């Protein structure tokens, strides 16, 4: 009977901590939010299940956690032994080394239609304005005592772009990766809750009623030239964004070249789905209570909320500023889509606009700053990486 009782001592019930229980409840909440509210389900379900899996207490000596990594041991005779890691550590490798985010960007590029942006170049600036959220949060994090590298990784939460946030956190502050990823995806899921009050506060009813001109038709050739030219323009100035933007514009070229359609289809279906599953699940599994439930994580969550608010305000106010000089006015609600969080924030713009005028269709216009916001936060990440490394 000894073995039985020894075994029971090693079960999860025995060694479960209060923190683990909290994390499991958080994981379940993510899944419920995804199912009942339809908030970013493709990421909240994997992350939620991952958080549950990662917080089952494991037996001492068994290699199960994402943090049980490969080790190399040098022998006295010059031999080197490879000590295998846990299965989850191999899946987490793509997160830790920043491999998954660019592959997700490849798929995003292969599913993104830049037409609305190409027909409305001035709306691109709204995607820049919303990045004020990134840099304001960066300063906020410094004020709260985080190091420069940590502050950079936290700031990028304001970019409202999961893969970008994970990529930069993996490069600048791997120890905060879990908290940053969870914060980024949580707030992206909460975009329909966070943005509307700010948008309404900063705009008048007249502004919200502005109707915008229908965008012009963009030629196939423009769409083909765009990914290559845009890549050159962005990365010659900000080479730190080479990997993320290279993959995104590569995916878009696969789509728009019209001769590589089968590659584009695979990039935006099987490939992005597989990577999304692995990324979401292993990020979730990295949120073990003992490394995750810290004061730092709480601060990160606070800063993340602030960053989304500042980014939204930045986009809206900059649209109002641009209207001072424009004949064809921009509906300032559209500025809120500059935070990216594709396509949720564009949908929020549509929704808030229709609350004033049910016949005003802003969705198409909001897609322009929305995708520009993705480019903008990737550039911001590239700059922060370049400035804060080495």
């Amino acid at each position, binding site marked *: 009977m000894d073995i039985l009782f020894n075994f029971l001592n090693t079960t999860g019930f025995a060694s479960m901590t209060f923190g683990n229980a909290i994390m499991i409840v958080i994981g379940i909440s993510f899944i419920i939010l995804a199912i009942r509210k339809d908030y970013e389900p493709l990421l909240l379900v994997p992350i939620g299940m991952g958080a549950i899996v990662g917080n089952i207490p494991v037996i001492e000596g068994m290699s199960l956690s994402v943090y049980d990594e490969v080790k190399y041991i040098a022998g006295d005779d010059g031999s080197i032994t490879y000590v295998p890691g846990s299965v989850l550590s191999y899946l987490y490798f793509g997160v830790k080394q920043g491999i998954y985010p660019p592959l997700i960007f490849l798929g995003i590029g292969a599913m993104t239609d830049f037409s609305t942006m*190409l027909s409305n*170049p*001035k709306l691109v*600036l709204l995607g820049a304005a919303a990045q004020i959220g990134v840099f304001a949060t960066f300063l906020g994090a*410094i004020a709260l005592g985080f190091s420069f590298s940590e502050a950079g990784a936290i700031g990028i939460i304001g970019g409202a772009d999961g893969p970008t946030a994970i990529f930069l956190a993996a490069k600048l502050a791997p120890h905060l990766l879990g908290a940053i990823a969870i914060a980024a995806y949580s707030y992206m899921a909460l975009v329909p809750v966070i943005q509307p009050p700010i948008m309404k506060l900063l705009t008048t009813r007249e502004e919200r009623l502005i109707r915008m001109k229908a965008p*012009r038709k963009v030629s196939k050739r423009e769409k083909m030239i765009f990914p290559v030219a845009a890549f050159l323009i962005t990365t010659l*100035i900000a080479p730190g964004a080479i990997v993320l933007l290279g993959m995104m514009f590569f995916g878009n070229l696969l789509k728009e070249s019209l001769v590589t359609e089968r590659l584009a289809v695979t990039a935006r279906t099987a490939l992005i789905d597989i990577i999304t599953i692995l990324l979401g699940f292993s990020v979730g599994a990295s949120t073990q209570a003992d490394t995750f439930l810290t004061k730092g994580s709480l601060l990160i969550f606070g800063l993340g909320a602030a960053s989304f608010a500042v980014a939204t305000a930045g986009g809206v106010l900059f649209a109002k500023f641009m209207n001072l*000089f424009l004949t064809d006015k921009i509906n300032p609600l559209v500025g809120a889509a500059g935070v990216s969080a594709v396509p949720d924030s564009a949908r929020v713009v549509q929704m808030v606009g229709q609350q004033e005028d049910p016949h005003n269709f802003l969705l198409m216009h909001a897609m322009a700053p929305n995708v520009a916001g993705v480019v903008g936060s990737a*550039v911001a990440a590239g*700059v922060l990486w370049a400035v804060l490394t080495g």
Partner: protein
Amino acid sequence: MHRRWQSTILCDLLVTLILDCIDLMLFLATFWPASVTGLLAQTWSDGTAIAATGLVIVFAVLVLLSLFIASLPKVLAFIEPWFPQPSHLHAETAHPESQLPDDEVIAAIGFVLHTEIMNQTGSTGSTGTQK
């Protein structure tokens, strides 16, 4: 359609705006440290400089991108005589690499049409066992 992107005026304004923005932040950098408890002046000053730089570069990149996009149709129209749009670009639906489901959809269409024709000519015998 014309004058929809008044590049010269707006461009000047943007440059002004950005430079003002930097000035503002550098001004803050010299002013705030005392009010931030326990934070070294140097750290705060570096931080604001980095943030200002970052925001300027993000704006610079997206302004350039915006100007490029705005000019693209004009450039293409200008070079059109020398590099005409190849005609096959309009025929991509017939491209051999079109995805797998197409065949099955075509098969479905064919099957339905066949069944319909059968139905309308009154011979409904064997179709039920096709699949």
